[in-house]
């Protein structure tokens, strides 16, 4: 099992990488001791979105399926958590609400994915069909201001959004402040390690093979559609996890976290970071969320313009992603490799691996 932590699909291996990993983790764990509770709360807020980014990285970077609809699943699960938490009452049932909300996102992904993947939709059309679904969901929720739009006591409330659900709780204690922060950190570690192991397993081998050449993968006896659906459902479940945590964190959710420009954000994070690697996505998304949040305090428009600019700059200057590119550069300096072409990221990946074997 542990062998799967390092492998061809994920960068970073061996003693150096994992020591760095542990240092960062240790820093993250002692952070609340040195920060005030407001900052810790903010920190938890950035971490909420990491799951959605990792999910998209899996789908797009590894699976080759560019979904523009991650906020669709974010929204389904976010609203799902709200409806369930209000209907089932507070306390420990909120944890069940969280789990069920994620399952709802997975079911939605299963249905949408079935029609698209079995219909043979790929590439650009995959993106625009998922985005269409997302926008329609956002429009629909925006229209639900009237009192007739309710599920049990849970009012959908149109553009003003749904509120009044309990946050995650164990018994009578709300999980908030540093407790929530630790839950987030733990979840990220679990998801990150889990995805690493998945990607370096036999399944991960097939997922990237399908990205590279679906016909060849089929000719090796893999039912390509099942692997694509699996990837799509896992990626969407992670978007759903972000959605449910978001609703729980702020005890509200509005359609604006689903529609434009929210739908573009995961794309920006993952593209900027470097979609072909999980670790790059993790680090890059965190940095972008931090920058975004800092600027939003002054002007949300400015923050979004920056995101748009970064997306444009990424595709024009570093299509493989900035964080990944810079990371590789640093690693190469560190290990004293000479390099010919800073842009040949993929070729580089292979070379690093061949060095290892």
């Amino acid at each position, binding site marked *: 099992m542990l062998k799967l932590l390092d492998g061809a699909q994920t960068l970073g291996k061996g003693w150096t990488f994992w020591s760095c990993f542990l240092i960062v983790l240790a820093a993250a764990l002692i952070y609340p001791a040195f920060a005030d509770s407001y900052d810790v709360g903010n920190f938890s807020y950035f971490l909420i979105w990491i799951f959605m980014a990792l999910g998209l990285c899996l789908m797009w970077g590894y699976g080759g399926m*560019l979904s523009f609809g991650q906020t669709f699943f974010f929204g389904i699960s976010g609203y799902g958590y709200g409806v369930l938490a209000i209907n089932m009452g507070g306390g420990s049932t909120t944890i069940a609400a969280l789990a069920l909300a994620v399952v709802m996102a997975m079911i939605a992904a299963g249905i*949408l994915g079935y*029609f*698209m993947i*079995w*219909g*043979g*939709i790929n*590439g*650009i*059309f995959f*993106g*625009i*069909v998922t*985005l*269409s*679904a997302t*926008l*329609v969901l956002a*429009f*629909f929720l925006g*229209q639900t201001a009237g009192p007739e739009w309710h599920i049990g006591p849970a009012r959908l409330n149109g553009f003003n959004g749904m509120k009044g659900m309990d946050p995650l709780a164990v018994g009578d204690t709300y999980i908030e402040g540093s407790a929530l922060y630790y839950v987030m950190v733990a979840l990220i570690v679990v998801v990150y390690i889990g995805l690493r192991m998945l990607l370096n397993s036999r399944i991960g081998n097939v997922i990237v093979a399908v990205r590279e050449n679906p016909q060849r993968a089929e000719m090796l006896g893999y039912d390509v559609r099942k692997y694509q659906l699996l990837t799509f459902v896992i990626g969407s479940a992670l978007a759903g996890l972000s959605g449910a945590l978001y609703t729980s964190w702020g005890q509200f959710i509005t359609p604006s976290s689903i*529609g*434009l*420009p929210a739908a*573009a954000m995961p*794309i*920006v994070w993952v*593209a900027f970071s470097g979609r072909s690697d999980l670790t790059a996505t993790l680090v890059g998304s965190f940095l972008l969320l931090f920058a975004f949040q800092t600027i939003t305090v002054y*002007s949300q*428009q*400015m923050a*979004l*313009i920056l*995101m*748009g*600019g*970064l*997306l*444009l*700059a*990424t*595709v*024009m200057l570093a*299509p493989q992603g900035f964080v990944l590119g810079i990371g590789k550069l640093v690693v190469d300096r560190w290990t004293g490799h000479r390099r010919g072409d800073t842009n040949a990221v993929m070729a580089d990946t292979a070379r690093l691996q061949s060095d290892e074997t």
Partner: protein
Amino acid sequence: MSAELFSLFYQFADVFAFLILSAAGLAIVFGMMGVINMAHGEFIMCGAYVTVGLVRIGLPLAVAQGLAAVTAGLVGVVVEFLIVRRFYKRPLDSLLATWGLSLIVTQSMLLIVGSSITGIGTPEGSFAIGPYTFSTYRLVLFACAVAVLVGLYIVFMKTRFGVLARATMQNAEMARALGARTGRIYAISFGIGAGLAGLCGALYAPTMTLIPTMGATFVVESFVTVVVGGANVLLGTAPAAVFLAMIRMALNASYGQIIGQIGMLFAVILIIRVLPEGLSSVLVRRGR
């Protein structure tokens, strides 16, 4: 009875016009270069704002609309030159680049002109048939949509540019080898696409509230029309719009706009399961 029939036709024409006008520009760019222009909605917004601005300074509506479409087209040529042409070999990256552009434009507009500006009001004029009253302007929109289709047909089927453009669409390499200046054809097509988007915004400007994010109202319809139309946009777009307009009209009439939109989306998702290549693939097969 004929009043009912006309009422049905009117509802159909309304949705059909909306679909064709929102999708035409996107479809041309997609069919020509395999690129989905994610800033399509912003070209629509550009057309709408220019129209309102020109009407405010006293130009007649129709003139303002024409100039707005031209403006959007010119902006399109500039965008093609600065950004899009770098990505013809990487269609997915062009999607991301134009999406980045779209974010920058909408948010800058929000910063500069604020969230909404006062509109100019729908041109008056209505007529009655039997117990129903109809807006004349909606029929003007339908006429414009038909005119756009006819215009595109003439440009792509009857002109020298059209011949070269279709050759490029079929096989860009070959067209280039035969001497077509594909770079210029792409630039012009992108300009036409942006101009059609601008026209859409210009035509709908009098009917809606102008906000910088208004493009989003149009993109779903344009996306699904192009998806259902399939790869051969010259063949597929119009039938796709007819088909979707029928579904939409039926649902709108009984359940209202939003259910109409959701229903249309479901129809699209069902269609791609059965006809992943879109309607045009069926039409092409028939044609053989």
